[in-house]
């Protein structure tokens, strides 16, 4: 059901979440641009929500707002229970085309049942409902699921609020690989080191990360299981080991090794076994990225004289050049549907995020900053997370794949870099 496309309306001003919070050493998200047309939706308080120590609907509203696709219609402090059909005409009169009604039911074990239903106020129909059980501490995780539900019902695309992101924070001499919710909350440190950590890459299962750590005074590729902290060295050959990327099957990794000369592409199993060389060139081949269908490995190379993006069949074969404009195009990353390619291009001395439609080969530069790196698609392909710089510090930023919605994520007094958006894991 795609109400968003069929019933877009132009709204000049946004109604915004009214809560403000204290600043902590968390990623804070600043919206710096929004879609021109946003879907007006009302997310009133859930019945009994006041009995929770921390709310749910405020998190749902913030998620939807941050996507840039919705404007939130303020319904005041009135709760709309899930047990009755709300006054849809009344909600519609306030400008909302959809409304979410919900209730919380305390259970004997201290948990809550959260039940909610989404209504279309124009067609006066119900769009669906869901029931989730949570502990009071799970308010945010539950809210992200609810926001995903609303997003999917209204846009026809899966949401990405209940996903996680990985990134590296550098504060003084300390490097931390952190994992946070997609809204920057619940940051947890997976690895702390006094040496650099780069190139985190999520396994398709969302449970493991591959990355490069310099703790042995040289780049070595590890696979790290997040829940247990178990780490395995998967590539530690003579020379440098870097740029891990997962095959869509989650069984193999492409890596870049220098054991046979310059930086070259290899494939190995996720346990480090079964090494084989993918390609041979007289120059640099690096930054491999598998296409979602598993057919191609995209990579950057200076084999033609300047840094350009190429692709090679994953089963081996000859490379095809993909980028032709400019003399520095690096860090290829495929969209989840495989139709477009995000990469970094040098444009008049500025490094910016670009996206290429692979069918038409048309390229669009999405950002206007100058030190962008490491683009990473949201699992639904709508947003691209990337590293940038602001005020001399590394920040994370996100831009919608149409360039309209822009956000900046930063941590106070620290450098943030190397973002990687995790998969949908439900």
């Amino acid at each position, binding site marked *: 059901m795609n109400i968003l496309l069929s019933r877009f309306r132009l709204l000049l001003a946004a109604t915004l979440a009214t809560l403000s919070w204290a600043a902590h050493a968390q990623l804070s998200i600043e919206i710096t641009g929004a879609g021109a047309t946003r879907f007006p939706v009302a997310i009133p308080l859930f019945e009994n929500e006041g009995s929770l120590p921390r709310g749910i609907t405020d998190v749902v509203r913030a998620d939807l707002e941050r996507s840039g696709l919705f404007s939130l219609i303020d319904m005041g402090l009135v709760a709309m229970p899930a047990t009755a059909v709300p006054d849809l005409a009344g909600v519609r009169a306030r400008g909302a085309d959809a409304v979410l009604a919900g209730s919380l039911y305390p259970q004997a074990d201290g948990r809550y049942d959260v039940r909610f239903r989404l209504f279309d106020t124009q067609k006066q129909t119900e769009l669906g409902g869901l029931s989730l059980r949570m502990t009071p501490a799970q308010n945010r995780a539950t809210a992200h699921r609810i926001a995903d539900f609303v997003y999917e019902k209204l846009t026809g695309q899966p949401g990405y609020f209940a996903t996680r992101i990985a990134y590296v924070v550098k504060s003084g001499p300390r490097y931390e690989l952190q994992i946070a919710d997609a809204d920057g909350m619940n940051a947890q440190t997976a690895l702390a080191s006094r040496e650099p950590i780069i190139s985190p890459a999520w396994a398709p299962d969302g449970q493991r990360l591959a990355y490069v750590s*310099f703790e042995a005074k040289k780049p070595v590729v590890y696979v790290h299981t997040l829940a247990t902290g178990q780490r395995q060295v998967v590539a530690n050959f003579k020379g440098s080991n870097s740029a891990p990327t997962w095959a869509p099957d989650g069984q193999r990794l492409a890596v870049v090794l220098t054991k046979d000369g310059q930086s070259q592409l290899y494939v190995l199993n996720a346990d480090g076994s079964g090494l084989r060389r993918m390609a041979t060139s007289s120059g640099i081949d690096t930054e491999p990225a598998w296409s979602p269908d598993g057919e191609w490995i995209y990579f950057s190379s200076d084999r033609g004289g300047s840094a350009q993006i190429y692709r090679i069949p994953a089963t081996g074969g000859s490379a095809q050049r993909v980028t032709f404009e400019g003399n520095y195009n690096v860090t290829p990353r495929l969209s989840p549907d495989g139709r477009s390619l995000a990469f970094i291009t040098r444009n008049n001395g500025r490094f910016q995020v670009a996206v290429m439609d692979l069918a038409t080969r048309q390229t669009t530069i999405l950002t206007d900053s100058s030190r962008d790196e490491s683009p990473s698609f949201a699992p639904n392909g709508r947003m691209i997370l990337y590293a940038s710089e602001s005020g001399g510090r590394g920040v994370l930023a996100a831009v919608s794949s149409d360039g309209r919605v822009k956000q900046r994520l930063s941590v106070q007094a620290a450098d943030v870099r190397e973002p990687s958006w995790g998969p949908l894991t439900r």
Partner: protein
Amino acid sequence: MKKFVLPALLVALLAGCSSTGTFDQAGGTAVEDRSTGAPGVATVTAPSMAGSGIAALTDPNNILSKRSVFFDFDQFVIKPEARPLIEAHARFLVQNPQMKMLIQGNTDELGSREYNLALGQKRADAVRQALTLLGAKESQIESVSLGEEKPRCGESNESCFAQNRRGDMLYSGEF
């Protein structure tokens, strides 16, 4: 422009949060059932290595205490002024065949981290090749890259970038 400052109020581990399958509502559409919750993350601290020195290699009056070979922008060839330094280290490696060397290539911070890692490798390889041409054994030397990750100078200007475009030679016990 709106700012959402997000709190660190709650870091409770998200153990599995089950969902209930029934939500009977007269006239309601079918209720979907999805489970909520994300697994926790365990924190690991990486070990760090302690370096140690050797007298001749750390004596500031000895050329062997100098370890850096500098490169021009976008260049990977050793400049003539670096030749005495390379020769001294090649001689030391020939005379001390038990010694091993790690060469770390470095770049300025412009551009992609992984691409810079590959560029730094070219610098480390250039130093390695010069040393082996002068008699050091391949088995004594490993060339690796730190890319832009360990800048000697942290500012974003050309004099700083020039200091960061270099290869460093480390001996056994120092890495």
